[in-house]
């Protein structure tokens, strides 16, 4: 292992933060979705890095499961987005202001 683990920590943290930035920055629900995927991948990357360093396969299995869950989540989320678009003719999340008491 010739690449120090700190590098991976930095890399994935930066990617994660870019994901967070995207979620907060954009109004387009699809881009927000994409940014969530980005955050998931940042976590995956770090998990694999640590798994390689500690020689522990559990980390990689976890990544595998996260991928499965992400696939399911994207399918359902995009279906909901399509429904939302059919109702409002928009994917702008600032229109979705009905979640209040």
């Amino acid at each position, binding site marked *: 292992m*010739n*690449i*120090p683990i*700190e*590098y991976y*920590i*930095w*890399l994935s*943290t*930066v*990617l*994660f*933060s*870019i994901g*967070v*930035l*995207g979620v*907060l*920055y*954009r*109004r*387009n629900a*699809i*881009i927000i979705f*994409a*940014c969530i*995927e*980005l955050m998931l*991948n940042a976590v*995956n*990357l770090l998990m*694999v*890095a640590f*798994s390689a*360093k500690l*020689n522990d*396969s559990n980390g*990689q*299995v976890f990544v*595998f*499961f996260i*991928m*499965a*869950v992400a*696939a*399911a989540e*994207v*399918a*359902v989320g*995009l*279906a909901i*987005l*399509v*429904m939302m678009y059919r*109702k*409002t*003719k928009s*994917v702008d999340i600032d*229109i979705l202001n*009905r979640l209040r008491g």
Partner: protein
Amino acid sequence: MTLYLFYFLSFVAIFSALLVVFSKNPVYSVLYLIITFFAIAGHYILLNAQFLAAVHVIVYAGAIMVLFLYVIMLLNLNQDSEPHKSSLAKIAAVICAGTMMVIIIGTLRGSASLPAKDGVNIGYVKELGNVLFNEFLLPFEISSILLLAAMVGVVMVGKMDHKTVDSPQSVNGNSTLDNRPSTMDKVNEKELTINK
């Protein structure tokens, strides 16, 4: 050599990730995201996780991102006419994300000093399959049920009738929305019922 490769891949990943956030056209965003994913797959190979790299390319770049593109094309969103947030909100978002980064790095730095271990390479299909089908057999099977449920759910959501999810007047506070397609849908439905 590997270190240079690492720098290159990292640069590509971060650069395209930033472009995901900042490009105006959603299609470009998604395409940049695919590049980011390929870069991450390269990192996986660097880390000797060949199986995961393959799966990653297949699932993310192959399936999920195609789904994204498909939806964007379907909804005809490939123009950069998206309204922007106020600059105050943008600044707040940047500060927030920056704080998050600092906090996470601060939290994770301590774990870098964990001792490294050597052993058989765990990234190969054989090793991973051993673990997956022995230790994690039940979660593995359950994840298949999860995928099935997601599939059924998507079909249900997609087929949901317009009228059951209605009350558009309270949703679209901005009245610029065009209602014509939905009325056309209704006409189509009427024709369908007549045909039946």
